[in-house]
């Protein structure tokens, strides 16, 4: 298991380097930061001077090397837009995104699994059919539109929930949370639904099909033949076996949640790293973009690693193999 972890970590490192390279090469094409940084009254000489200052006159591999060099030391440079260290800017924002992602993920997982189990058990019932059809509407509309419709309905027409922002936040020192205040909790509802709806649908459909598959297995028949209660058959026996593939996909969906947060954060003016990234693109804030993409990659890679380790926790058969040849 240790060898496995090390190998995965090494692979992850290569992934990170490649992602970094691709991401960095993209920045050459999103525009020129200099124009944004200088005002309407800039001269040609100003532009040249600033370009040299930022190292933008260097060839792209040199720029990338310099970025990596800094990144290794935890220095992602200074945001062109905010004039502050990128690490500060990101650490200030990351809590908002993670909080949103977590609430949406929990929504998606709880409702996704529950509805998936329900629709699998009541396979041909009318309620299950309605849920299945409705769930398709969730994946048949773009996220941004769902967000705007929710705002229109719940913020403008009904006035129940706020349309933007995080509400009041409480600073816990290292974490600025909105979950401790009522306005913060209210503010997270719409964005979390918007962000989680798609993932919820995916998880639900996956759980359903896996569950149907598992329910056909001998050990489920045997469990029934032993006279176990339905609840025990479904949740103790079937669900647990459903979870292995579900965890894989859910792990990947968590990555998507963070990526799709870009859209949700834009619609709801949620002050997280996704919004930061969109602003960075708009202002060609290269250090912020690079750091964001690296951060996201690190997150994806760690999620993957955690998912792999979760297998070990859930499936005893894998645990038994740990001393053997492994994968």
């Amino acid at each position, binding site marked *: 298991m240790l060898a496995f972890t090390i190998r995965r970590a090494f*692979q992850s490192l290569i*992934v990170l380097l*490649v*992602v970094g390279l*691709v*991401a960095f*090469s*993209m*920045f*050459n*094409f*999103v525009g020129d930061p200099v124009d944004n940084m200088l005002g309407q009254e800039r001269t040609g000489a100003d532009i040249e001077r600033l370009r040299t200052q930022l190292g933008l006159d260097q060839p792209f591999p040199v720029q990338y090397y310099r970025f990596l060099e800094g990144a290794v030391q935890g220095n992602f440079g200074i945001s062109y837009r905010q004039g502050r260290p990128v690490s500060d800017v990101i650490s200030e924002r990351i809590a908002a995104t993670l909080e949103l992602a977590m609430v949406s993920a929990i929504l998606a997982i709880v409702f996704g699994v529950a509805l998936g189990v329900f629709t699998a058990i009541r396979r041909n019932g009318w309620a299950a059919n309605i849920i*299945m*059809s409705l769930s*398709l*509407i969730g*994946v*048949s*509309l*773009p*996220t*941004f*539109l769902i967000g*705007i419709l929710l705002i*229109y309905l719940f913020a*403008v027409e009904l006035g129940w929930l706020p349309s933007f922002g995080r509400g009041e936040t409480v600073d816990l020192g290292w974490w600025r949370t909105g979950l401790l205040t009522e306005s913060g909790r209210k503010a997270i509802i719409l964005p979390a639904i918007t962000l989680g709806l798609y993932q919820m649908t995916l998880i639900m459909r996956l759980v359903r*099909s896996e569950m149907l*598959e598992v329910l056909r297995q001998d050990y489920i028949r045997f469990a029934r033949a032993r006279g176990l209660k339905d609840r025990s058959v479904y949740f103790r026996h079937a669900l647990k076996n459903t979870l292995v*593939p579900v965890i*894989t*996909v859910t792990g*990947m969906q968590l*990555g*998507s949640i*963070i*990526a*799709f947060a*870009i*859209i949700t954060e834009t619609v709801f003016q949620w002050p997280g790293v996704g919004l930061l990234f*969109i602003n960075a693109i708009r202002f060609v804030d290269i250090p912020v973009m690079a750091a964001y*993409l690296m951060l*996201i*990659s690190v997150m*994806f*890679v760690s*999620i*993957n690693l955690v998912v792999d380790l979760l297998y070990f926790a859930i499936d005893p058969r894998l645990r038994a193999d740990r001393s053997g040849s492994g994968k």
Partner: protein
Amino acid sequence: MRGFSFTNTISRAWKSDFMWSFRRTPVAIVSFFVAMILILGAVFAPLFAPYNPFDPATLNLMNGFSQPMVPNQFTGDSFWLGADDQGRDVFSTILYGLRISLFVGFAAVAFAMVLGVTLGLVAGYVGGWIGALIMRIADVQLTFPGILVAMLVFGIAKGFTPIEQRDEMAIWVLVIAIGLSEWVQFARVVRGATMVEKNKEYVQAAHLNGRRPISIMVRHILPNVLGPVLVIATISLALAIIAEATLSFLGVGAPPTQPSLGTLIRIGQGFMFSGEWWILLFPAVTLLTLALSVNLLGDWLRDVLNPKLR
């Protein structure tokens, strides 16, 4: 004789389990016909559309924001579904926009399918370090969300395309970007099926008969994976259409002079509070209908073909 055998084939197909299930499933029938109507409407848009919204010379800005079925107060023109902010007929724009959305969707799925099936076959049949490498790349791809892949591809392609070709490029970049984020599904299923089929006697026999691996893969293995591939393709099509819309919202989609459904929705959402509901509603309903019918078809296909999809 030929004609007879042809009708015979048809009637046999009609009586097959597949068609039987189709005829027994109203949802599948309705979805199929709705999807067909939309696809045909898009393909023959120039025949059905009263206007050509992509020809700027025919536009009259004063028609902007015409209400559905109400003659415009300046020009007297009347539009079934109203006109958008540029005076384009919404109905025509939807048909033409469907064209772009469907083209992007189909092309992206085709690209993903070719790439995924090929790599899946190779990974499954050849195996070894090549197979391992392909699957590793697939893992990496899976961890990286499609939307970011698309943005990266878009950014890079922009740098490499000459400025004159950027409009045409935008569409192809969408195709490649969306295709790149979907191929893994195909590759995984095909690889799994290939590894199973590879060891079956008839494939071994063909191998011993000296058939080349490529011909074995194409003639023997490929037909066995068509079912699952078809299901994934259907679901991917719906995903691709939605992805296109989302990318257009982020401003990396189809150009506004040649709007896709996604671009239309992006434009329309700006008029949600102002009362020009038709600019948003009709394209959104069209997109919903299209994606929903394709998804429902995919669901039904999955039930019928019952491939064990992961």
